[in-house]
């Protein structure tokens, strides 16, 4: 079971995508089938944390089979503390996405759900692939259903948003491919553990490594997105179907940064870290300021997300153990919170058919459950202790503080701004006198399906805030590519490379 589980996690949604595409589309049949498939896959992903050995650092549930002999591409998959929970997260957001689409997607459901499952497959693939070529294939694959569905289901100007999304994310992946191929030409392998060792022992000339690392970083930074590469985000959030918008930002790029940028090129990443910390902090403040003045709530959410992703970027490039653990944890927190907000705002859009914040007001008495959940999720987003957002935020900020007082203090300003934009949003939508929109529309509070999605997430936000060690314990086992030695001054970091070679360990 242990060796087949990751393959199953890949194959079930892929087979599901084909099945949904082939079967006739009657009523809600595609949606039901997709729900069943995503639930089954989610169940499979839960096998991973249940059988993960926290005492054993490194990759587990590993499969490494040669696939193509020349070039040497292998089907090499595995998870460690870094990717373990991300795989579970993709699993959890599968059924959440289906239920969020239940009402919103009313036409051409077959294509939608088939593409949705393909997207799921691609995301699983990104998180478990340890062969760079296979990884790249899944990375590219994750873009395609997204672009197609944005174009098909856009709210106002879907095709323009899809073009923008595609250009922003596809163009940077060309240099990424070139960089991967260059590494292969120098080392003869696409395998992550081997590449890590080869690069560490100097198999690739340092001058070229600079450009290779930069190509990796560029592709990932656009995908996060890091300021100033966020141009696609607001349009994608306001045009993409809710189920896809909730997974498009953040985790793919941030995970890839941790695994393949910091992980493969620790020296290059460490050299460029000051720039990334600066951009991350700018992103925090810039996103927060722009969130304050948005009039459309999808764009509002895009800039709020950008602000929070900036914080995680800071955590990744702070180069501290606590910061990496906090960043990994905060990716999970952030995705859950954003997913819940997408479902909630989507529920509002279904009921009131507008995303203009100014049209709302006074909804709290008419849809009290929706309002309650919105407030809970907002509080998690602004980092209220006892909810999950606080843990990651605190770990990242406190560890960044040991690296740079100034940037950490600037980043901490985000806690004031996030409270400002989020509570103002809550007030404009739910408080005050009942708006014309609220009075004219029938008041339908959350229905069973929506509550089945949202309450478990809300409870999870609480558990992750109260008992974070359940997650931190496994996250911390992720092998760190570099050893940190805290200098006495607490600001100087010495970076040395570990000499553990997983290639030798394998043999």
């Amino acid at each position, binding site marked *: 079971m242990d060796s087949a589980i990751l393959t199953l996690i890949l194959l079930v949604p892929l087979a599901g995508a084909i099945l949904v595409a082939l079967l006739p589309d009657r009523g809600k049949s595609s949606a039901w089938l997709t729900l069943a498939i995503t639930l089954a896959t989610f169940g499979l992903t839960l096998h991973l944390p249940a059988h993960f050995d926290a005492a054993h650092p490194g990759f587990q549930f590993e499969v490494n089979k040669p696939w193509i002999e020349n070039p040497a591409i292998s089907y090499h998959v595995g998870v460690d503390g870094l990717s373990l929970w991300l795989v579970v997260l993709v699993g959890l957001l599968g059924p959440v996405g289906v239920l969020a689409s239940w009402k919103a997607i009313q036409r051409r459901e077959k294509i939608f759900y088939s593409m949705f499952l393909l997207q799921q497959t691609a995301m699983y693939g990104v998180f478990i692939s340890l062969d760079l070529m296979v990884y790249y294939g899944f990375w590219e694959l994750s873009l395609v259903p997204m672009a197609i569905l944005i174009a098909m289901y856009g709210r106002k100007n879907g095709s323009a948003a899809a073009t923008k999304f595609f250009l922003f994310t596809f163009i940077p992946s060309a240099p990424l491919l070139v960089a991967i191929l260059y590494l292969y030409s120098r080392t003869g392998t696409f395998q992550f553990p081997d590449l890590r060792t080869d690069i560490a022992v100097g198999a690739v000339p340092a*001058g070229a490594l600079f450009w290779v690392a930069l190509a990796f970083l560029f592709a990932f930074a656009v995908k996060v997105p890091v300021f100033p590469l966020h141009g696609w985000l607001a349009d994608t959030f306001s045009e993409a179907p809710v189920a896809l918008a909730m997974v498009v930002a953040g985790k793919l790029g941030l995970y890839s940064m941790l695994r393949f940028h910091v992980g493969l090129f620790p020296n290059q990443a460490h050299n460029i870290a000051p720039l990334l910390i600066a951009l991350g902090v700018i992103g925090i403040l810039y996103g927060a300021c722009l969130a304050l003045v948005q009039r459309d709530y999808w764009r509002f959410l895009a800039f709020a997300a950008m602000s929070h992703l900036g914080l995680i970027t800071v955590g990744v490039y702070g180069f501290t153990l606590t910061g990496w653990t906090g960043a990994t944890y905060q990716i999970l927190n952030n995705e859950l919170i954003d997913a819940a907000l997408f479902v909630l705002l989507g529920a509002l859009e279904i009921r009131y058919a507008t995303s203009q914040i100014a049209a709302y007001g006074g909804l709290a008495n008419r849809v009290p459950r929706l309002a309650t959940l919105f407030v809970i999720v907002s509080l998690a987003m602004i980092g209220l202790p006892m909810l999950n957002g606080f843990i990651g935020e605190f770990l990242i900020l406190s560890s960044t503080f040991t690296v740079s007082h100034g940037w950490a203090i600037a980043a901490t300003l985000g*806690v004031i701004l996030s409270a400002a934009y989020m509570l103002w949003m809550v007030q404009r939508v739910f408080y005050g006198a009942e708006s014309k929109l609220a009075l004219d529309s029938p008041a339908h509070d959350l229905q069973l399906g929506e509550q089945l999605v949202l309450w478990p997430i809300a409870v999870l936000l609480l558990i992750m805030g109260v008992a974070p060690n359940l997650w931190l314990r496994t996250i911390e086992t992720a092998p760190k590519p570099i050893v940190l030695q805290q200098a006495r001054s607490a600001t100087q970091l010495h970076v040395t490379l570990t000499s553990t070679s997983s290639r030798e360990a394998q043999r």
Partner: protein
Amino acid sequence: MNQSLHLWLIPLLPFIGFLLNGLLGRRLPKTIVSAVALLAPLGSFLIVLLASRAVLPHAETYGTWISTASFNIDLTFVLDQPSLVMLLVITGVGFLIHIYSVGYMHSDEGYWRYFAYLNLFLFFMTTLVLAGNALLMFVGWEGVGLASYLLIGFWFQKNSAADAGKKAFIVNRIGDFGFLIGLFLLIANFGTLSFSDLAAKIAANPTMTGGILTAIALCLFVGAAGKSAQLPLYVWLPDAMEGPTPVSALIHAATMVTAGVYMVARTHFIFDRSPLALSVVAIIGAATALFAATIGLVQTDIKRVLAYSTVSQLGYMFLGCGVAAYSAAIFHLMTHAFFKALLFLAAGSVIHAMGGEQDMRKMGGLRTKTPITYWTMTAAVFAISGFPFLSAFFSKDAILAAAFASGSLGKLLWFVGLVTAGLTAFYMFRLWYLTFFGETRGHDAHPHESPWSMLGPLVILAILSIGGGWIGAGRFGAFLSPALGTETEELTGSLEYIMMALAVAAGFVGWLIAHRMYHQRSVAAQLAAPAPAGYNLLQNKYYVDEFYGLTIVRPLIYLSKYLLEWVVDVAILGGLAWILATLAVFSGAILQRWQSGNIRSYAAWLALGAAVLLYFVLAPHVFGAPSLHLGMAGH
């Protein structure tokens, strides 16, 4: 080891109350909602009473909350002398205010929600007080801010209430920003947030003064100034009066706003090593006391007078902390909890009697119509004015004496405190005369006395306001000294009596002026008289809110809207992206088809992509590797 006191039950009971009422309260009858809500603080109060007989300090650890490579945060509760005093006040006064609320809120449709929030507040407040480390304290700290936000905005249909709740949360967040930086500094320098570990590490290092400790103390004080409404972050507290009056009594007078004072006392071992930080605390405290008292002189809304009075009295407490008289500050915190809760609850009874009217200009003559409210309020007015042998007489005197004894700056601050005592007496007696004496000035008011569920708590608090000073007179410092250190200097002999006499005299002067202005002369004529110079400035609260709006809020919005969104995001970044996209479009006409939204063209795109991919993959093998790194290998 000593026996477990089950301290965890103290916050847990209110949390259960919150969950029950919050999740089910909408469908439960009011009697059950009240029973659940009242049993929680009563239970906690009894547990605190039981625990008070234990050997102090007593610590209980229930596990690890966060463990990381660089620090561990345990779930530890500590019961010692200051936390015991705080817990008795919070659960005791809290219980009384819960009883009062049953009468006050009886006809509100959000009855269940109100009690759920009130219990949630007690959960966080007891957590804050019991916390054995600074991060756990921060949990309670932010949590009480949340409860405050929810209760200020309880009547959220009113935009003013929603605004006030939001303002309270955001201004508190500015303070919490400082608190967080303080925590980061503690972790970076000591690697722990446990109060006992920190105290031990600092004690083991007797030469460590100023420097980093000053920075930490000042950062923590920014947090304290936010929570306890000190200059320049006090602006949220007067607006917080939008909430129900019992909430003002419990959260915005007796307990939550004193958390800053408690936090400074709890971390006194840091402040003690930084004379600079202590001076800042003392100066901000004295300045706030005076500043808020002057605004209180002219307010006409009965709750706003009390709100500014609270800000002013909190200033006294910080003045006490700033001269290292922590136990005097905690003493005043306790007596203030009694008489200020009483003042608010009595004001609530007055508002109840007047059918919701809060403007004192429309009150008057309530002495005979609401006799019990009148007598209890009288006790509170005399107590806060420092009338001999009432509660504040002892506690205020302790702070002023400590200030006087602490050097030349202390003498100046003592004088500020003395003047403030006179102002306090003036605005309190002004309130007293305007409300209870003379003719009823309201038009269609039919004042009536409140139900006993409201009057009972008033009577108990009146007894505490009168006699509460005797709890601590002379002994309080000795009781708290194991946790807060011994008082540095004490006045002795005749000087102490002269100090007392001066403070009492200041109170009498304030009373006399109020008596002449609002009792001997016609109040109507007084209100109609032309305003003296400076009146407008006070009436408009020194225009501080307007100043913040003009210098912070508006510039932030304009900067975000015009510079960041229009110039940077749309013009510069959007323009760059457009240029790059246009180049890309020119380079391939395929995009034309792409924009058509045709599925088939996407498939073609996909196939093309795959072909390109395959080509590159095979390229090193088929065409030899060097062709690929021509551009990059040129190092």
